């Protein structure tokens, strides 16, 4: 699957099938700080991601006080 990451913007390739939570753990990303969008739709932590999916991992933390 194609995985789009931000800050900085980059794209990586990962093998499927894989659960959303497992993908975040593998990439060492905090679940509370990210949302996962599969083929344009938001998916929960136990959704399964497949080889041909396009996945965006979107950080939700903004910095200004």
């Amino acid at each position, binding site marked *: 699957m194609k995985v789009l990451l*931000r*800050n*900085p*913007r980059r794209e990586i390739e990962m093998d499927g099938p894989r*659960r959303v939570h497992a993908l975040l753990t593998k990439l060492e990303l*905090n*679940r*509370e*700080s*990210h*949302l996962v*969008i599969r083929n344009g*739709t*938001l*998916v*929960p*932590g*136990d*959704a*399964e991601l*497949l080889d041909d999916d396009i996945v965006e991992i*979107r*950080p*939700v*933390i*903004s*910095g*200004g*006080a």
Partner: protein
Amino acid sequence: MVAAGSKCRTCRGPAIIDLPRHNANFCAEHFIELCRRQVVKAIEQFDMLSPQDRILVAVSGGKDSLAVWDLLTELGYHADGLYVGLGIGDYSDTSADKARAFASERGLHLTEFRLRDGYGYDIPTAAKATRRVPCSACGTSKRHVFDKATLDGGYTVLVTGHNLDDEAAVLFGNTLRWDVEYLARQLPVLESKPGFPKKVKPLVRLSERETAAWCIVRGIDYLVDECPMAAGNKHLAYKAALNSMEETSPGTKAGFYFNFIENMAPLLAGRTMPQGLELGTCSNCGSPTTGSLCAFCHLVETASAHAPVPVELVMKKGRGRR
């Protein structure tokens, strides 16, 4: 395929989001309902708004300000927006585009104000001229411009998009320093007083994961990229620390913030100013201040005298990766 176990708590349909602090999953429809309910609860619990209010929303083009504007409009409030152009290169250009598109698609009224046009400086220049972190100049500038626009425009209340994570992170920082005056001011509603409008934070019951999800579900095109000048600041470090705890102990942030509001804030009432200090008036702009010139007028004096500085020159190398 969504796993069989991931069902909406309300309707048992396929879930789109898991919310560990609520120990539940939600479909799009019931997630939206949950957010709406949390905002209504915050507005009522803290007496934030009334239907008669003339509301100004501080709009940045990011997820929180667009979500709060969308939520208030959806709940039937009439709210205008103000966007402040900070002059942070492409980041500011894109954020202005997002704010403009949001307002125009919904027929909402958005005013734009550029710091360089109004006061002769921008944030990168202010950071360089004052030799302080950019977020300091940015906060001082935005507070002044939003306060003034609210008062001058005849609005009765200023709405900001501060969410639960913002408030918990600021509380965390203030607690680490035991900064009593800042702690005493950290409330979801700041009542109006001479020189200051009423300010409210209707998103305090929503985490920023929830406000981002609200935007995605509602099809709001917000600026996802982080401010290039905020990367690496203390506020982000506090958020990361709190989210590490939240991941293993869901509800930590809400407990930290709401128990402070309920149990500690009442004990700090009346401690917003250091003892012996009194508020006077800025000799230049008339805003309330403890000195002869307010922090904003000091900033304008220093930053506007400095030659313009491009954002790239004040960004630290290697910042921004998370």
